[in-house]
């Protein structure tokens, strides 16, 4: 079968089991997204954008089974005062969640607002996703817009006193969840959103973020520890003048994770930081795909990604900085590094720059290698046992990414957790 034909067949097979939600304003956005999806088709292993990650298990109609990982650990972000919102296998759980009212923010469920004729989310739902489809197609995001079964519309109007914490619980071993959140941060407003949990056996999440001039949004995410889960997530952000977006993701498990971030700096002096740390062991494939577009003057973007891999784990980084014509005084920085703890692991990277303005300072760096023997030797000569020394160096390596989190308490908490995990593993 020719490639095009194979793609159509695979896409239609996937669509067969999905139901388009009818009625309300979102139905137009959904059918547009479906049309977009049909035009591009779901990814194929020979697609350039999926060169390093096989999309088959994300495309196939039946959900690959993933057993629920049991652990007695203190839940992540546990000690923090936060507004808890729980989703079980991708469905909002009102009982387990806190009351959604909080000063400075309004939070509604996608299903609850579908009938409202006038709603701010109407201008964003599927809109930022559609913008992010060019120049590279992101079919899973279009699929998400079309078939999302749940999600939150979060409107940040002030400075809420505590973070909004989205907790994704995984209950069934064949759950296939599609969540779509839309976040709008008003001018001068600022909020922190936390996300954690494995979510489902197979999880497709899309987040559309619009930060108005001078708005600020912090995202801190810890992807669940279930060994067998699969996830494809998208973040589409549009940043206004002097606005800030800082996103950090920690991934420590899962058989397949593809995190895409598509950020557009449309207002002058905007700042976008996207960072990630991952620790992969064994049958672990983790892909960070980032696309940052500078379309305004004097903006800053920063990408910091660190991966520690062992026992055949694979880490992928595809990062791109696009500086459009006229986006002068751009400061673009990108670093992707991997630490390979043994011989079977691999790191595949494509750090890209595409620049059409001359007064810019853009750089990217990428390194890969084993633990620094000299550093190890130094620690051992100071009486630190080899395992502990390795862990210490690994932690130091990851900490550089974790420190991208502005809130020091959150960063501290994640580092402590990483330390425990590393200690337990070896």
């Amino acid at each position, binding site marked *: 079968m020719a490639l095009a034909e194979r793609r159509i067949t695979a896409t239609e097979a996937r669509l067969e089991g999905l139901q388009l939600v009818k009625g309300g304003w979102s139905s137009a956005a959904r059918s547009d997204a479906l049309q977009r999806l049909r035009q591009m088709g779901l990814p194929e292993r020979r697609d350039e954008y999926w060169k390093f990650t096989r999309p088959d298990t994300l495309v196939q109609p039946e959900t690959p089974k993933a057993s629920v990982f049991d652990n007695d650990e203190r839940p992540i972000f546990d000690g923090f005062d936060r507004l808890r919102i729980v989703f079980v296998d991708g469905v909002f759980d009102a009982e387990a969640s806190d009351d959604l009212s909080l000063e400075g923010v309004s939070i509604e469920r996608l299903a609850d607002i579908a009938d409202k004729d006038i709603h701010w989310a109407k201008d964003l739902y599927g809109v930022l996703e559609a913008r992010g489809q060019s120049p590279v197609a992101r079919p899973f995001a279009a699929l998400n817009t079309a078939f999302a079964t749940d999600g939150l519309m979060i409107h940040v109007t002030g400075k809420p006193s505590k973070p909004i914490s989205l907790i994704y619980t995984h209950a069934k071993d064949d759950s296939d969840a599609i969540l779509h959140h839309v976040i709008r941060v008003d001018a001068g407003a600022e909020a922190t959103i936390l996300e954690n949990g494995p979510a489902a056996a197979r999880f497709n999440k899309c987040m559309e973020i619009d930060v108005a001039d001078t708005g600020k949004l912090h995202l801190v995410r810890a992807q669940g520890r279930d060994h067998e889960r699969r996830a494809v997530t998208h973040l589409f952000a549009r940043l206004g003048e002097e606005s800030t977006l800082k996103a950090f993701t920690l991934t420590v498990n899962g058989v397949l994770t593809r995190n895409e971030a598509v950020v557009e700096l449309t207002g002058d002096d905007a700042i976008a930081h996207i960072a990630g740390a991952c620790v992969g062991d064994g049958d672990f494939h983790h892909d960070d795909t980032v696309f940052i577009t500078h379309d305004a003057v004097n903006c800053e973007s920063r990408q910091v990604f660190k991966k520690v891999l062992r026992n055949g784990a694979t880490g992928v980084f595809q990062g791109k900085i696009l500086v459009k*014509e006229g986006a002068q005084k751009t400061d673009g920085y990108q670093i992707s590094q991997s630490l390979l703890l043994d011989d079977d692991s691999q*790191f595949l990277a494509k*750090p*890209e720059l595409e620049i059409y*303005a001359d*007064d*810019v300072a*853009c750089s990217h760096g990428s390194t*890969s290698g084993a633990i620094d023997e000299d550093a190890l030797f130094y620690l051992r000569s100071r009486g630190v046992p080899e395992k502990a020394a390795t862990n210490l160096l690994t932690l130091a390596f990851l900490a550089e990414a974790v420190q991208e989190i502005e809130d020091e308490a959150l960063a501290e908490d994640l580092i402590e957790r990483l330390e425990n995990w590393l200690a337990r593993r070896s």
Partner: protein
Amino acid sequence: MAALDQTQVKEGVDQDTVDAVREVGGAYKHGWNTDIEMEYAPKGLTPDIVRLISEKNDEPEWMTEWRLEAYERWLTKKEPDWAMVDYPEIDFQDQYYYARPKSMEVKPKSLDEVDPKLLATYEKLGIPLKEQMILAGVEGAEEAPAEGRKVAVDAVFDSVSVGTTFQAELKKAGVIFCSISEAIREYPDLVKKYLGSVVPVSDNFYATLNSAVFSDGSFVYVPPGVRCPMELSTYFRINAENTGQFERTLIIADKGSYVSYLEGCTAPARDIAQLHAAVVEIIVEEDAEVKYSTVQNWYPGDENGKGGIYNFVTKRADCRGDRAKVMWTQVETGSAVTWKYPSCILRGDDSQGEFYSIAIANNYQQADTGTKMIHLGKNTKSRIVSKGISAGHAQNTYRGLVSMHPKAKNARNYTQCDSLLIGDKCGAHTVPYIEVKNNSARVEHEATTSKVDDDQMFYCRSRGMDEEEAVALVVNGFCKDVLQALPMEFAMEAQQLVAISLEGSVG
């Protein structure tokens, strides 16, 4: 540089110097064409044309078959579209695949029999084939220090090799340096063994096309333990209109040998774009070393992007033996479109690959170039230094791959890609692929993009330089890591080219 015309000659500067500077300061200076009677094969590509090319070159049956097989493969291939270049669709049936000066119908036995018009062409390009030949007859290699080092030249005019100098002297050392068509006839065993062994017939669209229709090119064989006594050089000239040039170069450095090879190219200025699809294969055996330097100065098209050469080139070196070493150095200033990735397969343990590149794109030029370093052997090392300069409306892309295979223990790579932008209408892009499949391998990649530094410009201007001169100086400084890797004669030419190529890019 235009300012030079008005400059009063200062005391102590002789007129020759001024003329020489004016000469190199001109716009594309190789844009003239030689009016010479040509013999063409009919336009278009068919099995008959392939047979005809083979016949014209007096090739044995196996070669004809090899070509025809390549032709069949080519029909099934798709033109690659992943590079960041944009050009109108090429009608491959609207090209001449074979053109040779009529006077070359009967192969001249020595350069004395070569059409004086052809020799004049090369003379004008600064490659005096004949003089060098005479010089060679008069005096020995050691006695020509005033002229600098001697360089043996193979000159290719459209589809055929016009002449190769110093053949006799090279033969004494055991080095074979001749046109590939001659090699196919004279050294069929070597050609059979190595041709297509580094770049397989079906490697990519353009390489397959080249395999079917290549008309000439150079062949080098350096026997074991021999250090080639002089630099070898090929000079390619496209002259005829609507003619594609498809040359094929095969270099074999046997165990423990050394050779340095230079390549230069030019073409007349024409409105219609012309096609150039070359293949270069290098085999480096145990302990051997090959240096391959290119100054590519094909006609880049005019300042509105009209005409120019489409340069689609496949170059690859295979370090087969342990401790083999290959070094690619390229200065890419010409061509309307460049699609070129000189690569190294580091198969032997401890083998080394190096890639130094300067790519300059001005006006509407588009360059998509870089390298592949495939590390297969233990302790293999590679180093990539790429300097891309964009000006005018040009697009310049570095595209590369560093691949560390599981067995490439302790392999090392260092990559440095820098881009410089001159003007706000051009683009500079970096697309590196990094694949690390074992943990003892260490890979480092760095890339930066910046503009010409204001402080440096101010300094140069305050010393009385005009803006263009200042930019040329700053750019030369930016490129110095690569310029230093070039053989001396080339480094000079390259430095001048850097200045010329950027002409008109400021102000």
